[in-house]
């Protein structure tokens, strides 16, 4: 029985000012999957990730072709507002970027602008749930009014994750979320991802193949702007079908 994919990309291509960065990428993302996108630098995985929540719209000269569907709606159709897409598909970035506001205000910014809470109490609840889900509540519950930028790198990244789950997105995109963090902070976030997958679909771009192997159940390998191979993580890392995938994951190219 094939489950209906949560998001699917069909023949997606991206070019920057005429220069092709990504061509003919088709891939399905099932609900509650954790999918890693791996590949050498410049292979287009970050570009593809940014297509999934229309963040490429903010870049001048970027042209996206093809279709990306979220629950049967093509997110690139002219009737769909990119703001709505981004409320349903959240994003966590490589370098932790909390707003220069208090921890409380960081979390409740999203719920405020999307009208998710009717009272201060409801906002408090949302903040507590988000921080608890992100594994940060115990560490910051006594200092919610302190600036978010005063936390350590790992805590800041968990704050960013809490911020993005506060608006209950359906899919969370992560662009190398641990690359700026030390191994302990990385491990904490990987543990967190393991717990978050019960509620969200997670698509994560990573440079570390060990991380992809640890946390994801499906992996997609990109190279020179093309999707080379996609499948179960177990298979990709034990019996990859494509020669190029093999070369990359064993450290022969890249």
């Amino acid at each position, binding site marked *: 029985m094939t489950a209906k994919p949560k998001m699917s990309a069909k023949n997606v291509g991206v070019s920057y000012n005429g220069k092709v960065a990504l061509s003919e990428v088709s891939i399905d993302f099932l609900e509650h999957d954790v999918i890693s996108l791996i590949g050498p630098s410049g292979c287009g995985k970050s570009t593809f990730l940014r297509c999934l929540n229309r963040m490429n719209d903010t870049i001048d000269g970027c042209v996206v072709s093809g279709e990306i569907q979220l629950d049967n709606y093509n997110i690139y159709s002219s009737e769909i507002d990119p703001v709505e897409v981004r409320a349903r598909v959240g994003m966590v970035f490589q370098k932790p970027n909390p707003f220069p506001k208090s921890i409380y205000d960081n979390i409740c910014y999203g719920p405020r602008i999307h009208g998710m809470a009717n009272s201060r109490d409801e906002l408090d609840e949302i903040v507590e749930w988000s921080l608890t889900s992100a594994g940060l509540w115990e560490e910051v519950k006594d200092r919610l009014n302190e600036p978010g930028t005063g936390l350590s790198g790992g805590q800041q990244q968990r704050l960013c994750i809490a911020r993005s789950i506060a608006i209950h997105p359906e899919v969370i995109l992560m662009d190398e979320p641990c690359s700026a963090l030390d191994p302990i902070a990385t491990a904490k976030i990987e543990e967190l991802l393991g717990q978050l997958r019960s509620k969200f679909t997670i698509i994560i771009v990573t440079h570390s193949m060990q991380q992809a192997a640890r946390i994801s159940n499906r992996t997609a390998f990109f190279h020179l702007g093309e999707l080379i191979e996609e499948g179960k993580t177990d298979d990709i*890392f034990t*019996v990859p079908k494509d020669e190029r995938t*093999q070369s990359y994951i*064993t450290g022969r190219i890249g």
Partner: protein
Amino acid sequence: MDNEHIVTAFDDDLNNLQNKIVEMGGLVEKQLLDSIDALLKFDLAAAKEVVLHDNHIDNLELEIDEAIVRLLALRSPVAADLRSIISCTKISCNLERIGDYSKNISKRTLALSDTGNLPLMGSGPLKTVSKMAEIVQSMIKNVLDAYIEKDATKADDVRAKDEDVDHIHSGLYRELLTYMLEDPKNITLCTHLLFVSKNVERMGDHVTSIAEHVHFMVHGKIPEESRIKRDNSSSAYV
């Protein structure tokens, strides 16, 4: 894959491991030849040598184990590299067992020295055992080539050869039983020869196992067709 790892030290480690396997395989081949030779010529000194030299094979297995643990810890291998390294554990294990069988053959040769020159020496059964050993020796050589060249087809051919070894062993089993029935004085010699034959047949099985692991190393799964067992000595009744 012909191309090398970006980190060349990784390639050096893998080559080192491969060399050790090849060395072990060469030693095992030699032990087999020497032990059969010692049996045929009834050369007790040579048999003693074979028993002693088994140490080298055991030491090599330990070295290979250490190298594999190190590679796994430090290089985090995946895909073909991982399969290759895991296969090496199995292959070295199998080679060590083959070495043990050669030692066992030589021990039996030494045991036979007590019985003196017996009429069966130099005749049929010994020739049969020698022929079996030849096949097994060529199988060992071919499987090692298949391992170095990462040629699954060659490995599959080796696997097929085991059929012949099994067949010969079944025939010899019956023959020896007949001799034992004819004349009780033959029992000691024939019993030892039975075990020698069984050892060689088991060696063939281990080489087949190595061949299956080479196939796994290349293709990522063991061969689909199950081994053809022509050894029906377990159900032989005379």
